[in-house]
């Protein structure tokens, strides 16, 4: 009795240790956990959609034949992962198709969206970086512009949309303007903070060496502000990629936002899910690209 009593807890302890060390080696490889989460997500998705009643993937021809009835009942149920994967293959196979302007391949939609984002964004960089520099270096300019910045910054970019459409008369230009506006503020504020927050030590170096203002700005203030500028650029590209989807839903004839809205009108839920996934992946790539550039251009200490 005594022996088993003393033996049992120690065995349990060893088992517990083994389990713990097993858990440890898994946690040391985070991708294993990521993979497990992904698989779990897919199976739960599969389970929910297959018991969720009726056909998961509605044949478009069939849906058309059945008219609205389908849309109201089975067609609105969420498609399962297999259906979405199949749809992704279909969309992929004609991704570059531009033969029918009313039914462009998905590549072209992404192309138009990214094009608008880059145009609006580049415009914002060109305006905000020099202006932010001026604000950061000249307190009087900061004080003069600050009220406007503070009031304009919280306006939702989409609130500008009708005005932009009316003023610019062209939906594509309006979308670019929206991107410009929403990218502007983080860039402006971060650049200004970067230029204003240069370490006093470094400014003292400029002073004791007697550097000219132009040399000081180019060789000290600018490199010192680069990390902040790139942080601003990274925030802005994220916001711009957010906003373009919404903007294209409102004004588009093409673009990924228009695509989602159009597929929603066609009750093509699988296409929407594919597009949502693509938006996420592209947003991630944009962010990482800027993070990489930031790391390359920023100084190391």
């Amino acid at each position, binding site marked *: 009795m005594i022996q088993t009593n003393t033996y049992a807890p120690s065995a349990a302890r060893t088992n517990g240790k083994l389990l713990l060390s097993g858990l440890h080696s898994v946690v040391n490889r985070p991708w294993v956990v990521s993979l497990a989460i992904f698989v779990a997500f897919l199976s739960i998705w599969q389970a929910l959609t297959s018991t969720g009643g009726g056909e998961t993937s509605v044949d478009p021809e069939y849906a058309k034949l059945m008219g609205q009835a389908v849309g109201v009942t089975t067609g609105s149920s969420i498609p399962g992962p297999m259906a979405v994967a199949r749809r992704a293959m279909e969309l992929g196979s004609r991704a570059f198709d531009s033969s029918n302007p009313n039914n462009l391949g998905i590549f072209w939609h992404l192309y138009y969206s990214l094009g608008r984002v880059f145009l609006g964004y580049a415009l914002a960089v060109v305006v905000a970086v020099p202006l932010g520099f001026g604000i950061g270096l000249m307190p009087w300019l900061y004080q003069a512009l600050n009220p406007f910045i503070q009031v304009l910054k919280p306006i939702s970019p989409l609130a500008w949309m009708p005005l932009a459409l009316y003023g610019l008369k062209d939906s594509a230009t309006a979308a670019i303007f929206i991107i410009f506006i929403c990218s502007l503020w983080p860039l402006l504020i971060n650049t200004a903070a970067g230029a204003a927050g240069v370490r006093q030590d470094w400014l003292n*170096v400029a002073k004791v060496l007697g550097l000219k203002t132009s040399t000081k700005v180019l*060789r000290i203030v600018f490199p010192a502000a680069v990390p902040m500028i790139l942080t601003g650029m990274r925030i802005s590209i994220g916001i711009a990629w957010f906003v373009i989807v919404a903007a294209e839903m409102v004004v588009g004839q093409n673009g990924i936002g228009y695509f989602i809205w159009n597929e929603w009108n066609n009750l093509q839920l699988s296409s929407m899910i594919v597009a949502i996934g693509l938006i996420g992946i592209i947003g991630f790539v944009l962010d990482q690209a800027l993070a990489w550039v930031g790391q390359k251009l920023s100084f190391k200490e």
Partner: protein
Amino acid sequence: METFLSLNKVSMTFGERTKFHALDSISLSVERGEFVSLIGHSGCGKSTLLNLIAGLYRPSAGLISCEGQQILGPGPDRGVVFQNHSLLPWMTCHDNILLGVSQVFAARLDKGAMRRKVDQALDLVHLGHAANKYPHEISGGMKQRVGIARALAIEPRVLLLDEPFGALDALTRASLQDELIKIVEQTRSTVVMVTHDVDEAIFLSDRVVMMTNGPAAKIGEVLEVDIPRPRDRLEMTTTSAYAECRRRLLEFLYLKQAVVRH
């Protein structure tokens, strides 16, 4: 001997509203080629005094002049080595030094000559091999040496050092002190150095200026270091002159200006 650098009843008050009185009526004159150390407890205003001479601050009262000219702002005639090296991290060591050199010599020298000047300054601190390294790639002692090279390269009339070896270990510190002595002899620089290390002050200086505790710090005593040069670090410690200097400094710092911890 001629007075090279002179401070006449210099006071310093910080802040428009807070009015922190850091320095009170400091008078000091430094001869050409002299090596003067400022010693005192942390926070007494040593850096403030050095920054006043550098021209980074304007005194609230009093006059500072160098060779009879009033100091109105910072300028390349005074080379400064900062307490925390302050190298620009986005430039190589070479470019850090070239930045000042090309500001000072652009009118007189061509590009090649300026680059040679930078190389000479690096050789002076034995860092020719690190010219193309970035500050984050070299050790703390090397950074401090680049800082000294940067200050020397612009050929200043006076070298201002703010605890240049404060952050270094004892061995590195000793070898850099030896190096500094050689450099000062070679370039015949006038030096004002801040330190909180008694031995360092004695080893390097002709005179040690002892500052009282702040606020409103003053010059407490001035010690003439009567030890002939060249000084040998080890041999020096056996002399009675050394013992006397040490005793006077320690007495000032730990008896007369014992820090009251709040």
